[in-house]
């Protein structure tokens, strides 16, 4: 229970279905938080909702694990020139690892969250992570890492509802989170200071030269670490003229290359640290390897084929038609050709 409306209603649904429910909020980030997720006032909201629903509310302090698995890697990624997705790492290491492990230890039969996603069993009895009912709010991308074991231990009670239905339900129950805005941003990055303030306190920023694709100089940026592939704004480029994008970031040499959109297009790219919903799919992909690929939380999917390596932990994605380069560090998720469920996913490589 993050203190948001989705997890509030998820708890309510489970209680209504007759389950024995305990609400848990994870204390993760110890610093300031103004993004609506997991701050002290959010914990208060979660607790109050739990009280209203008549369920116990616990707070587990997993801040050490959060620092180890989410915050420190986030900082390091920026130093190394990657664009990380900390919310996905939080799901991977905290919600669906640390927390589910604690739940098993305490004798619980499942954990549930307010994610907009669904878990279904296909004809072969394989558990499938399907998109949530509300297309605009589908969050299967951020929980794509769940394997058969975790899928068998997880429930997504609001996956069949639209966001509007979730809020309506919260209103009916008189929950204070009914009209609370969705948290959009990373819980440890403040809205006022942004990434710059957070990282600025922890790493030195390196000045980088900006060059055109032909190597001619185009300017400078103050913080190489804050530059991302595909970025258009914040480069100190003069306005007007054709759109200029960051087409390459050379971290060792502190050089940023800008070009027009065509410079961003790629036909193939590599994905590492791949995890699969069901190991059985890997064999199937050797023969039928069409997938749809999504590379951001609510981004569009594009068709591609996958070449899976011998140990099934790396994949080469070949787009049907060239797509913009994905910044290394971003999560890339593969869906089945009917765009219904997750097959697997990994991290875009350089």
């Amino acid at each position, binding site marked *: 229970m993050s203190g948001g409306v989705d997890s509030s209603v998820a708890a309510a649904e489970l209680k209504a279905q007759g389950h024995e429910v305990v609400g848990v909020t994870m204390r993760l980030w110890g610093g300031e938080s103004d993004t609506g997720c997991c701050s002290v006032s959010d914990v208060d909201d979660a607790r109050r909702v739990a009280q209203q629903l008549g369920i116990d509310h616990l707070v587990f*302090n997993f801040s050490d694990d959060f620092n180890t698995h989410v915050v420190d890697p986030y900082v390091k990624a920026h130093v190394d020139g990657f664009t990380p997705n900390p919310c996905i790492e939080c799901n991977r290491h905290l919600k669906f690892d640390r927390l589910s492990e604690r739940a098993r*230890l305490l004798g619980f039969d499942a954990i549930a969250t307010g994610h907009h996603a669904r878990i279904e069993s296909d004809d072969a009895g394989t558990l499938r992570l399907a998109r949530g009912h509300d297309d605009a709010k589908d969050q299967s991308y951020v929980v794509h890492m769940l394997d058969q074991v975790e899928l068998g231990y997880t429930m997504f009670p609001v996956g069949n509802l639209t966001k509007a239905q979730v809020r309506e339900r919260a209103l009916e129950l008189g929950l204070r989170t009914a009209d609370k805005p969705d948290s959009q941003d990373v819980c440890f990055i403040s809205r006022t200071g942004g990434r710059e303030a957070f990282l600025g306190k922890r790493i030195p920023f390196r000045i980088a030269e900006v060059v055109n694709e032909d190597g001619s100089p185009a300017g400078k940026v103050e913080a190489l670490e804050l530059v991302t592939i595909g970025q258009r704004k914040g480069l100190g480029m003069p306005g007007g003229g054709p759109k200029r994008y960051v087409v390459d970031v050379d971290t060792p040499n502190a050089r940023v290359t800008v070009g027009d959109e065509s410079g961003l297009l790629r036909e193939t790219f590599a994905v590492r640290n791949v995890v699969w919903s069901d190991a059985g799919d890997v064999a199937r992909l050797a023969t039928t390897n069409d997938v749809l690929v999504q590379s951001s939380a609510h981004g569009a999917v594009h068709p591609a084929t996958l070449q899976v390596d011998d140990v099934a932990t790396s994949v080469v994605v070949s787009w049907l038609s060239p797509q913009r380069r994905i910044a290394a560090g971003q999560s890339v998720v593969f869906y089945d050709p009917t765009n219904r469920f997750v097959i697997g996913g990994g991290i875009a490589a350089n």
Partner: protein
Amino acid sequence: MVTYLDHAATTPMRPEAIAAMLPYLDGVYANPSGSHRFAREARRAIDEARDVVAEVLGCKPGEIVFTSGGTEGDNASILGAVRKLGGVAVCSSSEHHAVLHCVEHVHGQVVQVNVLGHIDLQALTATLLGATPENPITVVSVMAVNNEVGTITPMREVAKIVRAHAPKAILHTDAVQAACWFDLREISKLVDVMSLSAHKFGGPKGVGVMMIRLGRDLEPLILGGGQERDRRSGTHNVAGIIATATALLSTDVARQDEVARVTRLRDRLVDEIMAAVPDVLETVAREHRVPGIAHLCFKNCENEALLYLLDESEVCASAASACASGAMEPSHVLQAMGVATEWSMGALRLSLGHTTTDSDIDRAVAAVAGAVNKLRR
């Protein structure tokens, strides 16, 4: 059936304290600062309460200040001293956060404790000797009893060192956890300022007592109508003060017998748990600990999980302090004492009080053994 073993967090109000306070809720409800006879009745009640408290503490009635609790008393002592006298505040590293955060807030110095949780007397001496005339030590705060592990401070030794090396400094003690187990008269004669909290000795929450020796001045934390001789403004919590005095008196009268009774129960609790599960450490040796606290460390056990399972068996205990979100923080006390992580992660505090019985002990032993074995399976 609830097994309440969290008396160090708070203890039930004594029935005589509740009875004593009721007439002041709807009968004698006047504001004691008023000038009519109705107010004088309320005024008299708190003055009588003050006399009772002064007698138990072995000080003058004029040296007693009623507050909203132990935290306020600690804040008033540290911040009040530094704001009045300038200089540097000093405390031990195992103090309650109500002292520690104040000392940190005024950029004071923190002195290490040893493995027992005793302030390191050599380090304290060195800190006091390290002061300069421009930055003298103006307040030294050492708790009489540690609230987490129950360690008893050798107050006489501490006082000797402070008086010798910082004779002008105010010596403050947070005696919140000492009230049930010690004759406060013996502690008060060693210090200048002392903080107490009523709900730890069977009084109500929201009331505390400070003893401020005449001649020692602090800048008041709370300004206003000038109550408590300008030391702590605000309308008196008359009913709370009456209850506090009643509870303190009862505690003082029953203390000797209670110490013996609770010691026996606590020793049985610890002995039986240690016999039932392996890899458990009694954090501080019994001779250095108050009777009411049983603090144990279970190796490689997560105490959040342990407390959850105990809660399922209706056993109320605690581990370390909670932060604002309600999550448990790793214990700064155990860290200060140098307890290794594989033990401190499984820290459990079971604390006994005036309502604890043998059947509480029986149930607690079974629940703790069961929970630890389940987690270690």
